[in-house]
């Protein structure tokens, strides 16, 4: 497949910028998002309402926050399947801190701190011991959630203070929730980081050819380690938001989040093989996943059936361009 090899090299504005912008993955995602939005507003009379649309954002912000960091990690050629387990462990530790009378700032610090530590542990195993990230994070996934189960068993932590709940339930202005604002700010930061800094270019370089990157003076292991820490950090933040929103911690919290976050990343046009992708795509994909699940929810479709839609969306959106290319080559 010389085709994919070419696709994965780094072209620097070889095409007409306008033409490539119109034909890009992101514009396809915009079209899909608009189509689903219109379908939704026809399908349910409750959809086009400021408060409904605000509720919609709670559907995807926590997973999308993780997807931002996961995108960078996948572009660099690694993956982290343990993010949901990190949420579980961070949330459990916050609950534990609460039992010792921690106040809101301490709770947030514990959640984020545990997240970073877990990410650093993953990063150490992958870069320090040179282990494949997919197996490492399958292992730490069991380990992190396992620790949450050891601490909590079949119990749960409750009784978070109202000032803490604000992170998951509060509004900054009118219908604009804190979660949404935080997500938009993070998306902007990650966009700058990936597309406008040396660090971001190095991530692409590593994803395309980590040996060549190493020989060009890029500290491959250090960057990968930082990316694992970032993914842990975002999982910690997501743990704070989710715990605050639900108001309780169970060891089974956030089950399946890792698959949804990865779906957002891949749907957003990030190559699962590494080396290609954009933050804008990931944000749009998060919006699409949110729109689909929320719209189906308004139509009283059970959650488990929605997963059929997200799963099919993932495969169809990836398969269509490939089928199109094959069809064109044959014609």
């Amino acid at each position, binding site marked *: *497949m010389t085709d*994919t*090899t070419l696709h994965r090299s780094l072209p620097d504005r070889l095409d007409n910028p306008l033409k490539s912008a119109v034909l890009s993955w992101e514009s396809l995602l915009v079209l899909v998002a608009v189509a689903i939005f219109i379908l939704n507003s026809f399908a349910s009379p409750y959809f086009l309402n400021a408060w409904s649309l605000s509720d919609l954002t709670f559907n995807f912000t926590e997973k999308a926050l993780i997807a931002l960091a996961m995108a960078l990690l996948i572009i660099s050629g690694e*993956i982290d399947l343990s993010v949901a387990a990190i949420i579980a462990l961070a949330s459990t530790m916050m609950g534990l801190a609460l039992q010792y009378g921690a106040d809101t700032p301490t709770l947030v610090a514990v959640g984020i701190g545990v997240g970073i530590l877990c990410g650093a542990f993953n990063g150490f*195993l992958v870069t320090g*011991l*040179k*282990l*494949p990230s*997919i*197996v*490492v994070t*399958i*292992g*730490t*996934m*069991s*380990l*992190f*959630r*396992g*620790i949450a*189960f*050891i601490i*909590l*068993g*079949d119990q749960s932590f409750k009784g978070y203070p109202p000032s803490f709940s604000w992170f998951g339930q509060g509004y900054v202005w009118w219908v604009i929730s804190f979660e949404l604002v935080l997500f938009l700010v993070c998306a902007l930061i990650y966009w700058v980081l990936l597309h406008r800094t040396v660090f971001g270019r190095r991530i692409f370089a590593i994803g395309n050819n980590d040996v060549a990157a190493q020989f060009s003076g890029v500290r491959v292991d250090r960057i990968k380690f930082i990316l694992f820490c970032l993914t842990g950090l975002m999982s910690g933040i997501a743990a704070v938001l989710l715990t605050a929103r639900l108001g309780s911690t169970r*060891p089974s919290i956030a*089950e399946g989040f890792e*698959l949804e976050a*990865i*779906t957002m990343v*891949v749907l957003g046009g990030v190559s*699962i*093989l590494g080396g290609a992708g954009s933050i804008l795509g990931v944000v749009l994909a998060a919006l699409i996943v949110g729109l689909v699940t929320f719209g189906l929810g308004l139509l009283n479709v*059970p959650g*488990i*059936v*929605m*997963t*059929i839609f*997200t*799963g*099919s969306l*993932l*495969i169809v959106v*990836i*398969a269509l361009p*490939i*089928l199109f290319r094959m069809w064109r080559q044959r014609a």
Partner: protein
Amino acid sequence: MNRLLKHREIFLALAILLVLVLVTARFPRFAQPGNLLTIFNDTSILMMLALGQMAVILTRSIDLSMAANLALTGMIVAMTNAAFPGVPIPLLMAMCVVIGAGLGAFNGILVWKLNIPPIVVTLGTLTIFRGLVFVISGGAWVNAAQMSADFIGLQRAVFLGLPVLSWFAIATALVFWVVMTRTPLGRSLYAIGVNPTASVYTGINVGRTKFYAFVISGAVAGLCGYLWVSRYVIASVEVAGGYELTIIAACVIGGVSIAGGIGSVAGVLLGAIFLGVINNALPVINISPFWQMAISGTAILLAVVLNARGERRKGRIILKKAEAT
């Protein structure tokens, strides 16, 4: 010590023996033959699934949809049995294998013809298959009262001192051993994992062989759908939720390299038995079952570290991404 590490099977067998000795030291009844056979029987389904997964992982792919495939086929066969109790069990089992293989073939086609990375394909089909369980069942359960006596009883029947379920695992292991070591298909699974490009030059159709691997894992998952449902006498949406990772864990502990090309039937069997022994030992030594998850996580991590030490023998690969990808 290094030679021991290279022989993963011996190392694992010693580790299992060590756990047995430690537990038996305090609870002598643990190592009684009857209990050991119970553990083996408990682990049978995991062993079969892990063998199917191995066929896929050997080709540098991964099948995350096995547990969902199992749940879907299990639900279909349980509903069929509830609706038509007269259908003979062998026919139902054949149906399971065919449906499972069909679901696996769907994965395989996407990997083979469209070149979509296996992890993406099976991530998608994992959610689709499990969602379909809900759609066909309407969220309802099929319970013991609705299943026929034969449906539940077949795998519990004792044949030559062992339950039929254990014989299924033994037969599957034998078939896998023959296929993996004695047939062109088995050898090409290994060849693809070791060096896809060289495999192309030796005349192996890489895509089609991966397709076969997915059909194999699907067929095994389908058969296990019947075995699981009839063993736990319940078919529901949640059946085997999250079990895909336990399957992969058994493979990794058994020495299968996630980078492809390395792994043996004996290793995988021991990997599954290791997890089975741990799970059965915990309640005996009075450790809460909530420890189980963290312990298997630690076991996976240790196994990966050991695997990595055994695998540092890769030669230089020139033209890494040529025709084979």
